[in-house]
């Protein structure tokens, strides 16, 4: 499956891009996506325990199944206001 991964804040800065196109074998969950990204990128690995996922603009648990074409945002601790 093809996924669009969105990056913000510290992860956008560390990875030097605001989005990644990722291919995973189906079936896959948010956990599988994080495993895949953490294996390839030290910054994702470093922040991993603090990262929450938003799938298609809604927060979702790491166990959530992903689907082809999903937009998945990696949400590090938020600091609006």
């Amino acid at each position, binding site marked *: 499956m093809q996924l669009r991964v969105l990056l913000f*804040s*510290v992860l956008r*800065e560390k990875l030097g891009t605001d989005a990644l196109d990722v291919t995973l074998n189906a079936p896959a969950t948010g956990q599988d996506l994080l495993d895949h990204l953490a294996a390839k990128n030290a910054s994702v690995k470093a922040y991993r325990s603090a990262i929450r996922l938003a799938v298609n603009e*809604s927060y*979702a*648990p790491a166990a959530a199944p992903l689907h082809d074409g999903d937009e998945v945002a990696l949400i590090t*601790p*938020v*600091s*609006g206001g």
Partner: protein
Amino acid sequence: MDDLPINQKTETTWIHLATAPLDGAAVDAFLRTDAAGGLTLFVGTTRRWTDGRETVRLAYDAYAPMAVKTMRALADEAAERWPVLKVAVHHRLGEVPPPEASVIIGVACAHRAAAFAACRWLIDTLKAQVPIWKREHYADGSTEWVQGQTPDVPDTPP
């Protein structure tokens, strides 16, 4: 931030996300209604000094479409929890120097207790749940993304 400003205004709810300065007077005017006995406005501003360290500006980043969705969901939830007549949730993105506002929450109710409670809940929950991030720019030239609160995530997919 190509998709900004986002402005969603109904008779009772006004959600706004933009890089331009926020307009507190416009929020006050929106909240006025004959049925209200009081309104609360919380205005969050960029503070210049923190523990002796000088901030020259904050810079805000957001997952804009989800931020707006979440701000609107919080406004709707506040209106379910308290007898809210009108509610406004505005946030600014990009650079915000002291003492300008980055956020304005406004709530109008028949009585003040509900207006204070709903406003307090809205700003506290916005800071914990809305996908917006601030970066401190200090006077010495250094910068730092503020690691704030880890959002609550539902146990089951939406």
